[in-house]
């Protein structure tokens, strides 16, 4: 029974796997910094980072590419970490962070902001609050449902609230100014880091960290949620309280990055799969590996978005074009537990 080709890595291998992935990510980030309409050699990138390159290179690296590269890595890492948490918590490898309506709520918030012609910072704030609000509403409704399994109630309520938010978003799109507001709305709904600046990232970073800290601290205990409520309770863990905490943490993480990048699908669904394939399901190693893989994946996708064509390609389009076939490939391989 242990003879199958892809036995999960032993603990020592998991650490070296994480180290290898982190180095690969750093190399990828350097590469991404050198690519663009104004190509730079590796040496120039390093010199610019150290503040010793010419003014032009300094400007390109510090003001344009570095915020974008860091933004892509932050958003990817956050979505993958949130996805890994949601999948363990719902005991279902097909769950993405959107399941409780966080993206739909954030989208509605952002579209409201754009519709009201608010400044960018307010649009981002609306998106963040919209995401939190949608999930809070889902938790509130699901907790008042009796006689249905709590997890099922959450998922069903999430679908309903997500659909309502989607309908409201569509209504605003119909009512929006087709020349000025509608393109902005459409672009936001497909996700993009084209406008990410250092000042956008700064407020988001601490919020993502606030969400990550409980996940890191509870990294071992979160595994118990994969057993189901009765078993976790009988093992001495208050499953519903733990789940609520994990939902809150993962939602804060997702809402904060969706606020700056828009709706970016697929990352939170497929990256945790890849991470489990590499290091197994144990959450303590799954979380960091998923975060690093997610950072690398979105870095790759965003670099393609800004270099593949003369116009910016929205992130959501490429994450789906790359993610969907990859997911089908995972399914077709049919390995239990990974699919």
């Amino acid at each position: 029974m242990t003879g199958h080709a892809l036995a999960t890595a032993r603990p020592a291998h998991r650490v070296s796997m994480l180290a290898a992935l982190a180095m690969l990510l750093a190399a990828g980030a350097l590469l991404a910094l050198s690519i663009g309409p104004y190509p730079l050699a590796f040496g120039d990138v390093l010199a610019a980072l150290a503040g010793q390159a010419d003014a032009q290179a300094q400007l390109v690296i510090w003001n344009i590419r570095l915020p974008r590269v860091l933004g892509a890595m932050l958003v990817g890492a956050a979505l993958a970490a949130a996805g890994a948490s949601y999948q363990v918590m719902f005991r279902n490898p097909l769950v993405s962070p959107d399941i409780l309506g966080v993206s739909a709520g954030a989208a509605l918030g952002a579209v409201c902001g754009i519709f009201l012609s608010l400044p960018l910072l307010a649009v981002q704030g609306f998106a963040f609050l919209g995401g939190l609000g949608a999930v809070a509403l889902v938790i509130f409704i699901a907790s008042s449902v009796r006689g249905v399994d709590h997890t099922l109630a959450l998922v069903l309520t999430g679908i309903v609230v997500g659909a309502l938010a989607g309908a409201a978003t569509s209504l605003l799109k119909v009512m929006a100014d087709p020349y000025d507001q509608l393109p902005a709305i459409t672009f936001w709904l497909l996700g993009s880091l084209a406008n990410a600046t250092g000042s956008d990232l700064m407020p988001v970073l601490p919020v993502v960290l606030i969400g990550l800290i409980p996940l890191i601290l509870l990294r071992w205990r979160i595994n118990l949620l994969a057993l189901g409520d009765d078993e976790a309770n009988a093992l001495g863990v208050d499953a519903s309280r733990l789940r609520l905490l994990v939902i809150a943490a993962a939602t804060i993480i997702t809402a904060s990055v969706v606020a700056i990048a828009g709706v970016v699908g697929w990352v939170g669904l497929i990256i945790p799969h890849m991470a489990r394939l590499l290091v197994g399901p144990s959450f303590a190693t799954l979380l960091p590996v998923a975060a690093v893989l997610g950072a690398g994946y979105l870095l790759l996708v965003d670099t393609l978005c800004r270099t593949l064509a003369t116009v910016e390609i929205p992130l959501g389009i490429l994450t789906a074009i790359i993610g969907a076939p990859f997911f089908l490939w995972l399914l077709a391989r049919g390995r239990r537990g990974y699919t």
Partner: protein
Amino acid sequence: MIAAGALSIGHGRTLVGQAISLEVEAGEIVCLLGPNGCGKTTLFRTLLGLIPPLAGRVLLDGRDLTTLGRSAIARRMAYVPQGHVPPFPYEVEEVVLMGRSARIGLLSAPSVLDHEVARTALARLGIGDLAGADYSRLSGGQRQLVMIARALAQEASILVMDEPTASLDFGNQARVLSRIAELAHAGGHAVLLSTHDPDQAFALEARVVLMHDGGLLADGPAGDVLTPDRLSEVYGVPVRVERTASGRHVCAPALTKAHSLGLLK
């Protein structure tokens, strides 16, 4: 160790059973027998503190269950569910380590000692070589033994087992029952298990609690409780109890024709 008095059980306002009194002592095996839907699962969930009793109380080492926190209960009493397939491919040792939850700090990961306890528990059940195997790929019998190992890693003195031999083949049933007997007789555990096979109660020389329609019909040694009349009444089919040449009792239901089914009820 565990004692329930005048217990009414159920979910919310739905009463499933009442007037249930039950005690299990250290070193004792109690088999809970009863037809499908008689309330065994609800009784177990109440005894484990997963749902509150509607009336009466459960005492764990003399303390009311409702006054104990989840981890305090888990340090005294372990639940052995049927060996199910989890959604993710955890390693066997990781699954057994989860039994340590109540003894590991909220924010901590298992220590070297916890790993040692987990491996010892696996070795005690004769499956030490499975530590690194993928739990989701084990056979049903192996999974059940892993669930028992997890309960041992929990270091609780009371073991509550939900149909530990359900869906196991003939050989695995005997293997799992042998380990359970060892745990009670040599390990001093108090074991409460549910089963659909009265022969197992004879094999384990256990005390039998017979449950019917939400109440306890009889409580005592297997030989006293499992009479042909009682079994026929509870299960609704004619049952004979016979003594084999080696002196053990076995139950044999008579097969009936379709049109006579239910006439005994």
